[in-house]
C-alpha cells in the first residue's frame, strides 16, 4: 500500500502539469483545446502513450530500448504489405506482427539479461536488424493499410477515439499487473535493486527478459493503431517515436536508474507532450521554438525527478551548519537550516 501511495505521489507533478497545460492552453490559445483539435490530437497521443508504456517497462529494469523505431516500422510494414489492401488477410498480419515484435523483444532481453551486453548496444543493434527486415519485406516501398484497420483505428466509440480507449485499457491492465500482482511487485523490486532481488531468491534475469518482450507487445499494439490512423505510413515512421517515448517516461517520473515508475503517469505524460506540441503549433511558433519548448519540458522533468535535490539540500545544510559552527554564529542561522542539519546528522548516525 505504501508503495502504491509513493508511486501515486510521483505521478502528481505530471498530472498537475498536464492540467495546468490545458488551463494555460484554454486561456492563451483557446483554439488549441477546441473539441475538434482535441479529437485530432488524441489518437496520436494514444499511440505515443502505448509506445511509451513499453519503454517504461524496460526503463524500470534499468535498461533503455532504442529499438522502438524498428519495432514500430516493422509492425507497420507487416500490417500494410502482408494484407496488400485485403482486409481478410489483416488478422494474420496482426498475428505475424505480434510474433515478430515479441520475438525481437525476447532476443533483446536475452542479450541484455543473460549475455550482459549493454542495453544501448543490444537494442541499437536490434533496431538495425529490424530495419533490415523492414526494407527486405517492403522492397523500400510504403503502401496503404486495409480499410478495416483504418476504420477501426480512426473510428470512435461513443464519441471517444478508439485508439484512446485501447490506450486506457492497456494502461489499466499493465498498471494492475505491476501494482497488484506478485509478479508485478517482483518486477518492480528487481528494477529497484537487482542484488536485493537476487538475495531474496528472485530470478531477476527472467523479469528483465519479460520487460523487453512485453515492451515489444506494447510497441506492436501502438504501431498497429498508428498504421490505421495514418493509412499509408512511411517506412521510417518509427523514427519519430524514439525520443518522445523516452521523454514521456522521464516526464512520467520513472527513474532512469530503474525501479520506481508508473505506466499511468507515462500515459499522462504522453498526453502532456502531445498537447504541448499542439499548443505551440497553434500559437504559430517556429519549428526552432517548438524544439526548444520540448527540450525545456524534458529538462524540467529531469530536474524534478532525477536531480537528487534532497542530497543537495542536505549538503548545503551540513555546509551551513559547519560554517556557522566555525564562525561561532550558529544562533544567527535560520532555525529551519539548523534543524534540517540536525535531522541529517541524526540520520547519518544510524
Amino acid at each position: 500500500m505504501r508503495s502504491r501511495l509513493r508511486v501515486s505521489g510521483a505521478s502528481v507533478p505530471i498530472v498537475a502539469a498536464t492540467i495546468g497545460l490545458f488551463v494555460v492552453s484554454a486561456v492563451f490559445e483557446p483554439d488549441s483545446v477546441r473539441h475538434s483539435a482535441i479529437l485530432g490530437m488524441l489518437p496520436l497521443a494514444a499511440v505515443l502513450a502505448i509506445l511509451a508504456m513499453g519503454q517504461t517497462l524496460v526503463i524500470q529494469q534499468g535498461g533503455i530500448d532504442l529499438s522502438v523505431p524498428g519495432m514500430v516500422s516493422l509492425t507497420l510494414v507487416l500490417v500494410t504489405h502482408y494484407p496488400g489492401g485485403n482486409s481478410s488477410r489483416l488478422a494474420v498480419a496482426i498475428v505475424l506482427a505480434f510474433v515478430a515484435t515479441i520475438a525481437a523483444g525476447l532476443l533483446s532481453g536475452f542479450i541484455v539479461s543473460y549475455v550482459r551486453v549493454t542495453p544501448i548496444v543490444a537494442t541499437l543493434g536490434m533496431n538495425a536488424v529490424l530495419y533490415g527486415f523492414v526494407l527486405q519485406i517492403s522492397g523500400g516501398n510504403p503502401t496503404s493499410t486495409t480499410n478495416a484497420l483504418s476504420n477501426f483505428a480512426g473510428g470512435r466509440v461513443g464519441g471517444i477515439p478508439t485508439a484512446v480507449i485501447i490506450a486506457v485499457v492497456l494502461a489499466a491492465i499493465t498498471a494492475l499487473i505491476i501494482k497488484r500482482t506478485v509478479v508485478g511487485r517482483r518486477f518492480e523490486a528487481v528494477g529497484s535493486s537487482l542484488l536485493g532481488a537476487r538475495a531474496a531468491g528472485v530470478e531477476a534475469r527472467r523479469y528483465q527478459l519479460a520487460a523487453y518482450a512485453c515492451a515489444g507487445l506494447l510497441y506492436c499494439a501502438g504501431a498497429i493503431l498508428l498504421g490505421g490512423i495514418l493509412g499509408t505510413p512511411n517506412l521510417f515512421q518509427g523514427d519519430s517515436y524514439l525520443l518522445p517515448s523516452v521523454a514521456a517516461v522521464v516526464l512520467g517520473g520513472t527513474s532512469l536508474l530503474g525501479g520506481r515508475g508508473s505506466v499511468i503517469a507515462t500515459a499522462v505524460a504522453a498526453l502532456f507532450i502531445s498537447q504541448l506540441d499542439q499548443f505551440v503549433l497553434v500559437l504559430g511558433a517556429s519549428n526552432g521554438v517548438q524544439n526548444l519548448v520540448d527540450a525545456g519540458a524534458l529538462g524540467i522533468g529531469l530536474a524534478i525527478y532525477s536531480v537528487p535535490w534532497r542530497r543537495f539540500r542536505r549538503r548545503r545544510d551540513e555546509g551551513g551548519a559547519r560554517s556557522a559552527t566555525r564562525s561561532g554564529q550558529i544562533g544567527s542561522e535560520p532555525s529551519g537550516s539548523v534543524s534540517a542539519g540536525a535531522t541529517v546528522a541524526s540520520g547519518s548516525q544510524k
Partner: protein
Amino acid sequence: MGKAQRTFAVALAGVVAVAVAACGTAGSSGGASSGGTNAAHVGSSHVAGAPSWCGRKKIVFGLADGFGDNNWRKITVGEARAEAAKCPSITKFVYTDGQGNTQEAISQIHSDVANGVNALVVFPDAGKAVLPAITQAYKAGVVTVPYRVFPGGKAGVNYDAYISTNFAQAGELWGNWLDKALHCKGNVINLGGPPANTQSLAEYQGLKKATAKCPGIHIIGQTPYYVTNWDPAQTQKVLTAVLAKYPKINAITTDFGAALASSASAFTQAGRKIPAVATEDSNQLSCMRQKDVKTDPQFQLFTVDSQNWMVRTAVDWAVAKATGGKLPASTVVPQKPFENSLTGKPHPVECDPSMPPDAILSSHLSHAAQLKALGQTGFKG
C-alpha cells in the same frame, strides 16, 4: 571460454550480424547489362538505331543514389535503367544505395571508381558533404554528373555537369493556379519538408512571387512553410493545429501530396472539407480527390510533374560524354504542370486504381515497368 571472452564473442557476433543485415540491402548492383550488339556505323558518332547520345565507346555505367528506399527513388531507378537500356554501348549498369548515410554514399562513389565505372550519375542527397568524393571521381577520369540536389562546386572543376531543376518554378506554377482557382482571394497554408531544406524554401519563394499578383491571397500561418519532415504523422499533427487555428483555409500547398492524403483524417476529425490543393502528383492523392470531390466540390487539385524522368537527362549527359555521343542541349530540366482539375490540361486528375497508391502516374515508365520498379508486380487494384 571465460565470461569476458564469451561476452566479447557474442557481442562481436552481434555486430557482424548487424553489419551483414545493414549491408544486405546496400550497394545492390544491378548488373543489368543492356546487352545487344554494337552495330556502329562507320562515320557516325552514335550507335545506329540508338539515340544520338549513345556513342560507340563501350562503358560501364553507375548510378550512385544517396538514398534509395522510397517509391520516388524506386521509380526513378526504373527510369534510369530504362534509359540506359536504350544504349547498347553500356555493358553494365551498377546501382548503389547510400541508404541516407553520408559515409555510405561517399564510400560507394569511391567503390564505383575503383570498380571501373566510366560514367557516374550521382544523387547527392547529402549536398556538399559528398562534393570531395564527386571531385575525386571526376579527377580520376570518370564522367561524373550529379543531379537534382546541388552539391556545390563547379562544372569542369569538380564534375562534368550538374543537371538541375528549378523548384521555385514549381511554387510559381502552384501560385499561378491558385490565383485562378481562388479568384485572387483566399487563405493558403504551405506545408514543406524538414527545416531549412532548399526544395521547400525555393517552392515558397516561387509561390510568394506568383500569389503577389493577387493581394487578396494570403499565405497564412508559418512561413516559409510548416515543417512536416515529409512525415504523415507530423503532417497530421500540423493539420490538426492549423485547422483549429484558422477557420478559413481556402487552399493547401505541399511538396509531398502522399503525406497529405495520409492525413485526411485531420479534416474529418475537425469536421472540415478538404480545400483546393496544389502539390506534386501522387496516385493516392488523386484517387482520394476523385472519391471525395463528389461530396466536397471545393477539393480542386493541381499537381506538378514529379520528375522521376529527370534522371534520364542525367543518364543521357553522362553516357554521351563517356561514349562520344551527342550531349543533350540543356542541363536544366524544367518543372511542368501535370494535373489540373479545373481545366483538365495538360491532364485531368488521373486516378488509376489498377496501380498502387504509391505509384507516380507522371512517370515515363509503362505501368508494368513501374510495378516492377516498385517491386509490386503482383499488385491487383
